[in-house]
């Protein structure tokens, strides 16, 4: 019920006496003031909670929270500092001129902020001008009284809330207590935001993984098809070469065509490598040895203006890897490095060493989808004194077909990344314009239980007996005809089958006459695995060469026995086919073990 704010008019005759009215007026005023005070504190909480209850993006929410705190506590300056990255970075602010704020705050020592964060308690400075630890950006804004409040949610200490007044009216202790509660609420917002960011990052990684998987399947199928066709091209060219007399004028043309076909086969392999599909068979290897061998092989190609320094300090650093791919990786890094040296003289330094996971510079890792999981890694480092790269270029160098050079395919570094990912490793880049670039590849260091296997002693290849019978199984007619011709030239009698059913029928009819089987993996009706199982129930010891345009590791992934003794990757040359046959026959004589003939 409102009380009149004016005294009674002269002449009016109040029922109560004048003194009673005055007393009531005083009591009313006191009651209203008490209510105002209670409402002031209530409204501070209700305003903040009203904002927090409305869904809004984090930046917008923080801005509204800070504006409201500025209004509710008459603070001319309100800054929320994020402490998650080690230093203090402003997340939101009111009253700090935006243009220079970030730099000024980053440059500040933030001693009081650090103290508040460390102690978990507010730091109150009632006379900022007299305190030398007050940061310059606050002094420059004429801050007179300041409070730093730790912002801690349920999960972690998130940062510090800085509130300042540019008038000499200190924050009351009761205000500070209330602000602590509000800083906690801000901490909860940051907790929630952090959890949401992690969830979104996970979803993004899953989407990328699904996309990569889909892309990988497509690339793999294309590569399979290409490899089948390239097998025909290469095989046919091999046959033409055999038929051409030495010195024939067309031999060079055929050689060029064969080289081009081999390069095309390699490119399809690189695509798979970039997608992490070209895993290849991995085995424990000594990285120091692999690097030494690769460097020595590549040294011959080193440009005259580049000095190569090799530091292979530790004699034995075991990783589980595919040697040809690691060699290719090192070659890509080396070629990239010496091509970066456009000066008269420069250096490329190759170093192999072990590093604990904690020493890996996580912030420099490229496209890393997680943190290092192994305890220690082998670091293969290639550093050059070349022209260096801008941050923009660094962001693109692992993109397929991105190149800053006139020459090159733009697949070298993407393949490095794909290979490293396939080996559960990481890549980092550090570069400075005019100083040079350092690439570091980190591969998980294998435990002491894994040691590089000793190379098996070479077994004498059995001689090819003329007119022995071979079963050739492949669904591609053109492939079948080409390989049949090749085997014919080797002196074999060949029977063919276009799928697994035909193969099993043929094998059953001539089970004792067939010397070995060349078996395609991907076929309609009955694939290579089922066919292999079927013919081995008839003759378990029959030598079998499994052939495919797919990567060997993909082919063998998850498969149990019976595994083929020899895997022959398409496309292959006559020599590689011959070597595979010899290995398969030798393995059969020695007792079958899985082995591989590399064609790349």
């Amino acid at each position, binding site marked *: *019920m*409102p*009380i009149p*704010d004016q005294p009674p008019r002269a002449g009016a005759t109040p029922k109560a006496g004048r003194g009673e009215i005055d007393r009531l007026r005083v009591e009313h005023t006191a009651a*209203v003031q008490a*209510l*105002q005070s209670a*409402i*002031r504190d*209530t*409204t*501070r*909480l*209700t*305003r*903040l*909670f*009203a*904002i927090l209850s409305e869904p809004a993006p984090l930046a917008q929410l923080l801005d509204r929270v800070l*504006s*409201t705190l*500025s*209004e*509710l*506590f*008459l*603070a*001319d*300056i309100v800054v929320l500092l994020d402490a998650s990255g080690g230093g203090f970075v402003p997340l939101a602010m*009111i*009253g*700090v*001129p*935006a*243009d220079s704020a970030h730099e000024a705050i980053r440059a500040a020592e933030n001693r009081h902020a650090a103290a508040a964060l460390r102690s978990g308690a507010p730091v109150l400075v009632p006379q900022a001008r007299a305190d030398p630890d007050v940061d310059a950006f606050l002094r420059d*804004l*004429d*801050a007179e009284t300041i409070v730093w409040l730790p912002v801690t949610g349920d999960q972690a200490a998130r940062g510090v809330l800085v509130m300042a*007044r*540019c*008038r000499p*009216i200190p924050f009351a202790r009761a205000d500070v207590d209330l602000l602590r509660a509000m800083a906690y609420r801000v901490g909860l917002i940051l907790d929630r935001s952090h959890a949401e960011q992690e969830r979104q990052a996970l979803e993004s990684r899953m989407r990328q993984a699904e996309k990569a998987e889909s892309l990988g399947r497509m690339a793999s199928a294309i590569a399979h098809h290409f490899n089948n066709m390239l097998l025909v091209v290469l095989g046919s060219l091999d046959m033409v070469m055999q038929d051409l007399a030495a010195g024939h004028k067309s031999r060079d043309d055929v050689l060029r065509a064969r080289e081009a076909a081999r390069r095309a086969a390699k490119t399809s392999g690189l695509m798979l490598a970039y997608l992490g599909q070209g895993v290849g068979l991995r085995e424990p290897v000594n990285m120091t040895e692999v690097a030494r061998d690769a460097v020595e092989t590549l040294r011959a190609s080193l440009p005259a203006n580049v000095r190569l320094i090799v530091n292979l300090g530790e004699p034995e650093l075991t990783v589980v890897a595919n040697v040809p791919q690691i060699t290719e990786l090192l070659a890509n890094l080396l070629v990239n490095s010496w091509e970066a040296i456009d000066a008269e003289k420069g250096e490329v330094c190759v170093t192999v060493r072990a590093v604990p996971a904690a020493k890996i510079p996580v912030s420099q890792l490229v496209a890393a989808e997680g943190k290092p999981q192994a305890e220690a890694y082998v670091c293969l480092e290639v550093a050059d004194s070349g022209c260096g790269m801008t941050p923009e270029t660094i962001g693109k160098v692992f993109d397929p077909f991105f190149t800053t050079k006139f020459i090159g395919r733009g697949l070298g570094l993407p393949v490095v990344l794909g290979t490293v990912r396939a080996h559960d490793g990481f890549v980092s880049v550090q570069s400075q314009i005019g100083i040079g670039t350092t690439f570091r590849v980190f591969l998980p260091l294998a435990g002491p239980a894994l040691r590089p296997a000793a190379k098996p002693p070479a077994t004498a290849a059995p001689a090819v007996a003329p007119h022995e019978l071979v079963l050739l199984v492949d669904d591609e007619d053109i492939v079948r005809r080409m390989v049949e011709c090749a085997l014919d030239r080797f002196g074999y009698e060949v029977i063919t089958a276009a799928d697994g059913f035909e193969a099993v029928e043929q094998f059953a009819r001539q089970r004792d006459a067939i010397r070995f089987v060349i078996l395609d993996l991907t076929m309609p009706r009955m694939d290579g695995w089922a066919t292999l199982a079927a013919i081995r129930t008839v003759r378990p010891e029959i030598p079998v060469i499994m052939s495919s345009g797919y990567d060997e590791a993909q082919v063998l992934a998850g498969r149990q026995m019976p595994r083929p003794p020899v895997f022959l990757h398409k496309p292959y040359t006559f020599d590689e086919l011959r070597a595979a046959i010899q290995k398969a026959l030798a393995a059969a004589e020695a007792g079958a073990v899985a082995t591989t003939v590399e064609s790349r």
Partner: protein
Amino acid sequence: MDPTRAARIRAGTGLSTETDSRKAGEQAARAAVAPLGGEPPALVMVFTTPRYELPELLAAIRAVTGEATLVGATGSGEIVQGQYLGFGGGVGVLALTAGPYRFGVASGSHIRADLDGAGQAIARASRAAAGASSHAAALLLTDSMLGDLQQFVQGVYRVAGPRVSIVGAGAGDEQKFVRTVVFHNDTIVEEGAVVVWIASEQPLTVVTQHGWQPIGIPMIVTRAAGTEIMELGGRSAAEAYEEQLGIAPGQLSAEKFWSTSISHPFGLIQPDGTTVIRVARAKTPQGTLRIQGCVPPAGSAVQVMTGSTESLMAVAGQVVSAALRAHPQAGAVLTFSCAARAMIFGAGVAEEPRRLQAAGGAVPTFGFYCCAEFARTSGVLGTHNATLTALAL
């Protein structure tokens, strides 16, 4: 630079009640530049009735003031060195030399969609035009019908920071609430704002007072959105408001609401016990209250206020005196008084410009009756209603 020139700004005011736009502009401008003693003005301010052909009016003024930057606004009555120009009355012009200041001006039109961003952009551009200085003031003139003008003030504050005083007003249209505009040189800025960045080597102090007193009990705004308060203390805002005035719920008709609410605005209770005034312009059929300009957000505490002609008028002299105490070397005092105050003063409204000038003495006072006053004195809040604000230059 001439040290005497740098020490004190020189100001001249002029007015005209001519009905012809060109004649009015020329007459007011000639009167304004005359006291400058031949020194060219650096900044020209124009506050005018909206009845003129505004492009012609501005062209006529600029024909006299030359290259000097011009800013201004339509109003709901002008204050020209003690004189009051009522609705449809005429135009007032203030011509200022640079004195110790550097003026930078920028404007933007059609800024309704992002008032905060526009405030930042315009403030940044005006600051760049003025150049760096130890202190500054930002004079804001806005279309008053853009929405939540506090967002614009906040945008300016993001760029300015606490060392820069913020002062100014929302344009008026003689209480029709149809079209209010501001001026930048010869441009009529539609749905926009103009900012004058006044670079100074001395602090520039904004003064604001309103003269309203609280009645009734404080209430919490429990629901508010857009330009409306829906609930006070969990009840219909209109009913709660009526109760505070001792009126039975629903008895205050929509037609009579404005004439009542203008005398009983809300006071938004501040942490230091002071109040920032907010005026409810209308009562909706749903029982919500439509607020002029800047709505108290949900969770705020408000109190119904009351004021007499004398209590409101009393602050006029106090505001100008305080402004001049803060800056004794001033050569002019800019004053912005709410059009709601003028309505309350009624026929006695001319007394306020007289009191303003009486307090100013030899220093000319100049301004207009506006629709929202800007004055940031602490925290981020800088938008007021039914208030008088001043800045001495």
